[in-house]
């Protein structure tokens, strides 16, 4: 679609851009103490964007001369990004860590990051892929280091910058090899060109795919590109940790699915047999091994953690591993499973991090010991956290179970050659039970029972925790509408 016509379909991003500008200008008006009010502008913009997406309808087309795609698939991820951004903005009001800082820039940069995530989910041109990735990365470097007076936050930011620069450099090199082979930056054009390549190009193709995988793997924190994750997640403000563990991961998966499906895949359908045979390299097996290693490493290291925040950081690596199980299938059911899992994961993971933020503000720490007796002192927070932990493990009747169910079903349905992957995944879920239940143990079995019962002082915290807990619970047994919505969202732009 031409540039001018594209604008009429570009309302969500336009509204977000205006939101960013409004946030920056409104920040000039507010004094330091009331700089948190910028959040209301950003929130308003985010809600408007959500409406704009709903009104937009389900046109399937390319926008801006084929740089981004407009399809239900990207809309699904945009909604995920918006929900998590809104939740994180609201939770930032209650963050103790952020109290000493001017908040205007925090919210405006969060909004810019949301635009970057939108573009990541819809990019169909490698130039756009790279640019969107950089927007998201640079904004997250800043947000990770927002606590300037905290050395851990500084460390997180610096490590993130170094890893980010390195992996995006490697990815760019891979993209340039791909460009050199095909002579185009558009996904669809690349696919046609790759189909016509001779066997001499195989080595270059393999190398470029590996290099590009480094960039994607870094964004979804897959092993062996995960080394930044624990330190960055631990040092960042916990609100940002929650955000990083959900939104960029979702957008990263969207980008990865789209890229591998369209560039190395078959244009006619989501199911792509050609991908496995494109150069005689067993890609599915390779990706499967990567998934298995990712979840195992994430789980094994998560067990050893003493800080709940760090434990959740490692467990988010494991969750990326579960979702990666469905990548080598490259089937509709696999992508479907990933999308369902991401939605469920959004609620339970954000919820778990919100409890950590609350506990941190209340007891000044995020170690397992800080959770001692929490279930008795504050039954509400304790029960909600228990729910999140059960859901993250994947126990019924929680959302996590449904997510895992669809994921494993897709893997098993794909054929006997993937059974081993499902078994590794199931064993890993059992392992994860240990450290998730450890939180519950500390909340209910450790520490003294207190007689008085407390509710969170702020009603906003209560509402937010409920807003995360209710879907986590309800989606565990009533998930038909959500599943229908996701299956309708499974329309990927495949070229005109």
């Amino acid at each position: 679609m031409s540039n001018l016509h594209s604008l009429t379909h570009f309302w969500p991003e336009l509204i977000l851009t205006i939101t960013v500008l409004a946030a920056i200008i409104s920040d000039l008006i507010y004094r330091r103490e009331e700089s948190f009010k910028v959040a209301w502008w950003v929130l308003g913009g985010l809600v408007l964007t959500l409406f704009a997406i709903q009104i937009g309808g389900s046109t399937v087309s390319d926008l801006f001369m084929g740089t981004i795609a407009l399809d239900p698939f990207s809309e699904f991820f945009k909604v995920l990004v918006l929900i998590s951004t809104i939740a994180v903005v609201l939770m930032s009001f209650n963050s103790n860590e952020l109290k000493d800082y001017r908040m205007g820039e925090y919210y405006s940069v969060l909004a810019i990051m949301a635009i970057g995530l939108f573009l990541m989910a819809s990019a169909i041109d490698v130039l756009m892929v790279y640019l969107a990735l950089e927007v998201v990365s640079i904004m997250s470097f800043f947000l990770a280091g927002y606590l300037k007076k905290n050395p851990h936050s500084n460390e997180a930011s610096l490590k993130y910058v170094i890893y980010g620069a390195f992996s995006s450099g490697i990815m760019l090199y891979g993209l340039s090899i791909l460009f050199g082979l095909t002579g185009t930056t558009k996904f669809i054009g690349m696919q046609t060109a790759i189909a016509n390549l001779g066997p001499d190009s195989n080595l270059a193709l393999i190398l470029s795919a590996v290099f590009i995988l480094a960039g994607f793997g870094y964004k979804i924190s897959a092993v062996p590109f995960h080394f930044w994750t624990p330190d960055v997640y631990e040092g960042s403000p916990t609100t940002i940790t929650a955000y990083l563990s959900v939104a960029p991961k979702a957008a990263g998966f969207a980008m990865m699915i789209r890229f591998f499906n369209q560039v190395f895949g078959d244009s006619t359908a989501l199911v792509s047999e050609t991908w496995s045979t494109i150069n005689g390299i067993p890609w599915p097996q390779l990706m499967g091994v990567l998934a298995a290693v990712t979840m195992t490493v994430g789980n094994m290291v998560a067990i050893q953690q003493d800080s709940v925040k760090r434990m959740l950081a490692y467990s988010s690596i494991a969750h990326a591993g579960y979702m990666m199980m469905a990548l080598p299938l490259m089937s509709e059911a696999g992508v479907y499973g990933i999308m369902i899992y991401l939605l469920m994961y959004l609620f339970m993971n954000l919820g778990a991090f919100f409890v950590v933020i609350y506990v941190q503000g209340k007891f000044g720490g995020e170690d397992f010991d800080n959770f001692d007796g929490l279930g008795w002192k504050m039954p509400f927070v304790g029960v909600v956290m228990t729910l999140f932990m059960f859901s993250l493990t994947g126990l019924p009747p929680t959302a996590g179970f449904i997510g895992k169910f669809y994921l494993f079903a897709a893997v098993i349905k794909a054929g006997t050659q993937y059974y081993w992957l499902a078994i590794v995944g199931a064993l890993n879920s059992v392992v994860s039970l240990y450290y998730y239940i450890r939180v519950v143990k500390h909340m209910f079995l450790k520490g003294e029972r207190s007689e008085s019962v407390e509710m969170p002082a702020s009603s906003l915290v209560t509402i937010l925790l409920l807003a995360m807990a209710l879907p986590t619970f309800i989606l565990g047994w009533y998930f038909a509408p959500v599943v229908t919505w996701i299956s309708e969202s499974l329309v990927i732009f495949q070229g005109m």
Partner: protein
Amino acid sequence: MVDIVFWIIVGITIGSAFMVVQSKSLLYSAYALLFTFVGVTGLYVFLWADFLAVVQIVVYVGGILVLIIFGIMLTNKITSVNISHASVQKGIGGVVVLGIIGVLGYMVFITPWNQLAATEPEQTSATIGRLLMMDYLLPFEVASLLLLGALIAATTLSRKEN
């Protein structure tokens, strides 16, 4: 003749890039970077990318590098402090690097690259301008958003908190 010039430029680029990472003094590293940038400019000229070559000089040498050198010189004592590049396991690292160079070099030579006809383009700046305003309008606009965000981030991080 052209080949000799080309290899000289390649030598300058790679040699000075090696100096950047090997030099013990930060200031020398920055100066070595100057030659890397100029070398890359030469490579652009060989690709008939005249506009890009000029931009490379103006932006990287004239802007970024001067900024880096100012940054180093204006930072207290940074020139006198011996910033040691604590490279550990140089042996293994060297072997790995040589291996990667070998694989990549082999890949470059055996691959049939998608080549354009070797004719001198009449104008590059006009083509680039048209591409930026037509085919790549969105990336162009998004880049401005990226810069806006980076500016906000940089000023916020460097601001004195009181």
